[in-house]
């Protein structure tokens, strides 16, 4: 691989730090955690990691424009609350196939629209991304709870549950989904016009605007893709659990996704979109969670550990820049 390709495929110093961290965590687990080297452990971690990775890849695109999306967890909840409402409806019971397509397609479409809404606020109105996405961060989950009356929806729907529990060639279906999305987005970032414009906007917005790049449209696109992927992740979470609880789906996911993106080498200032780095970051975040859990450390302490990882990763980024 030659030098100019490095930036595009995110083979940069930030990734080496993350790679070393990953190796350390794996070695630590092999020694300390009982039953770590088991296929079951691998499956559990892949299926948990997949949702973080999917959202983190979208977040990477948004951060590449110099923005941030705090609403991903709420959008997951909205999509995850909608899907059972659709496939449990009378229409879907009568027409299983169109019902299933609607149950997957409509929530993702609505999630996508949430992203367009975020993007419009950020680009056309010039609202700070944190504040713009804070609106859906709070009211998106509220809407999901209004839709379901705050009830837990449980269901048994094998074909929908395939999203979260299916296996392809022995590995969890959502793991393959991550792979496909990663290849697609890596291509988009490295080769497509949109990808180049995305990095240009994040690198220097003024220059991008002056050189005729449709800055608003690029930003709206990034937020829309991010939210659409969050919607997909919400469906996967619901499929894994065969249950949908609007209060819990995607709770604190924005933090996992931001952490994964940053650990994977995305610069918060924008201008870089290492898609594979985001997956690496997601794997690290998931493994840290798993390590703490498997060794009997409470969830609450895991929150503090996650906070420390975020701070450390961003600090290292800042230090390298100076």
């Amino acid at each position, binding site marked *: 691989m030659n030098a100019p390709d490095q930036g595009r495929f995110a083979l940069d110093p930030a990734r080496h730090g993350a790679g070393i961290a990953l190796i350390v965590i794996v070695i630590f687990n092999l020694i300390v955690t009982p039953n770590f080297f088991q296929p079951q452990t691998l499956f559990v971690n892949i299926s948990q990691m997949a949702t973080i990775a999917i959202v983190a890849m979208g977040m990477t695109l948004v951060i590449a424009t110099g923005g941030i999306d705090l609403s991903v967890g709420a959008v997951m909840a909205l999509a995850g609350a909608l899907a059972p409402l659709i496939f449990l409806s009378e229409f879907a019971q009568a027409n299983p196939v169109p019902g299933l397509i609607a149950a997957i397609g409509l929530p993702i479409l609505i999630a996508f629209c949430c992203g367009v809404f975020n993007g419009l606020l950020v680009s056309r109105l010039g*609202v700070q991304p944190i504040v713009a996405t804070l609106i859906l961060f709070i009211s998106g989950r509220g809407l999901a709870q209004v839709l379901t009356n*705050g009830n837990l929806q449980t269901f048994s729907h094998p074909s929908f549950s395939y999203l979260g529990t299916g296996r392809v060639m022995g590995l969890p279906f959502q793991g393959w989904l991550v792979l496909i999305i990663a290849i697609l987005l890596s291509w988009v970032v490295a080769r497509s016009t949109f990808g180049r414009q995305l990095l240009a906007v994040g690198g220097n917005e003024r220059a991008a605007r002056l050189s005729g790049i449709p800055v608003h449209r690029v930003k709206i696109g990034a937020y829309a893709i991010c939210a659409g992927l969050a919607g997909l992740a919400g469906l996967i979470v619901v499929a894994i659990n065969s249950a949908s609880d609007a209060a819990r789906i995607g709770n604190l996911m924005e933090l996992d996704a931001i952490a994964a993106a940053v650990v994977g080498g995305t610069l918060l200032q924008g201008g870089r979109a290492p898609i594979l780095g985001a997956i690496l970051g997601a794997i690290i975040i998931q493994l840290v969670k798993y390590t703490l859990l498997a060794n009997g450390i409470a969830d609450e302490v895991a929150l503090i550990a996650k906070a420390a990882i*975020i701070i450390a990763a961003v600090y290292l980024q800042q230090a390298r820049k100076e």
Partner: protein
Amino acid sequence: MSVTTAFDLRRHLRGGGHSTGVWAALAALILFGLLRYENFGGAYNISSFLNYNAMFIVISVGMCFVILTGGIDLSVGSVAAFTSVVAAYLSPLGIQIALPGAVMAGLTMGALNAFFVVSMRIPPFIATLATMLGAKGGALVISGAQTISIDWGSNFTSLGMGKAFDLLPWTAVITAIVVVGLWILLEQTSLGRTVLAIGGGEDAAAMMGLNTRGAKAFVYTLSGGCAGLAGVFLASGFGAGQPLEGIGWELSAIASVVVGGTLLTGGLGSVGATVAGALLLGLVFNILNFENGRGVISLSAYWQMVIRGAFLLLVILLQSRLSRATQKELS
């Protein structure tokens, strides 16, 4: 000197003109409530309204200082949850220990934010997001994920339940003192000027020889302290430390600050207008409750979150027009 005067004049014109709108909206809403509902102006509603909203006013004012520097503090909700637990644990020792103790805990969290932002140069929203997680984790760890009942035998209960001179809740009195103190600090001291100058242009302020790092450290610590005080109010009002409370508080606080006409980019805004913003936001929910009570509409608790978001959206739409006008004027 003339630069400062021009800057002040503009700020007062903008801020003044804009906050008039908030006060007018507030007055209109109060008038509407008084005419429509019988018990709206009653002692019970006023005192419970002030008691409940005291904590939101306090965190909003702290947030106002942070936003004036162009920063943001997303940790206020979990810091308040954390300090409510601290206050509940300290309550057997009495209010004289529990109040300062919990505020100290909040100040410590705020100082942590200040350290991240000023010394480690981590962007404010990431730094305070991490503190949000840390404080949430901390609150759950020390409370064992349970609500911690306060000591009902101590004088701590008088804070949330008792009234000063049989008239106003103590929480409202303390809030008023804090608000006045911070208003003077912002408008009349050099520290307050520095805070405003940072929002106007940090590099320029630093070049003028202002202690921008100190002022930034101050605002984050102050916001943590305000969240700490809000946590004390929370524990006293509900009779327990609430490790799971505080979700969405940062949104309310940001909304109040923005409603008050403070620009999110910093530099322009005031303490008084922020209080008006917080009161306005609280009043919207107070009136919705009355409507619920009359059976005209029926809104579940979940709608509150939706309305809160919609309210913030409305304000942002209004403000983006205003700030565009300001930008035009400045350029």
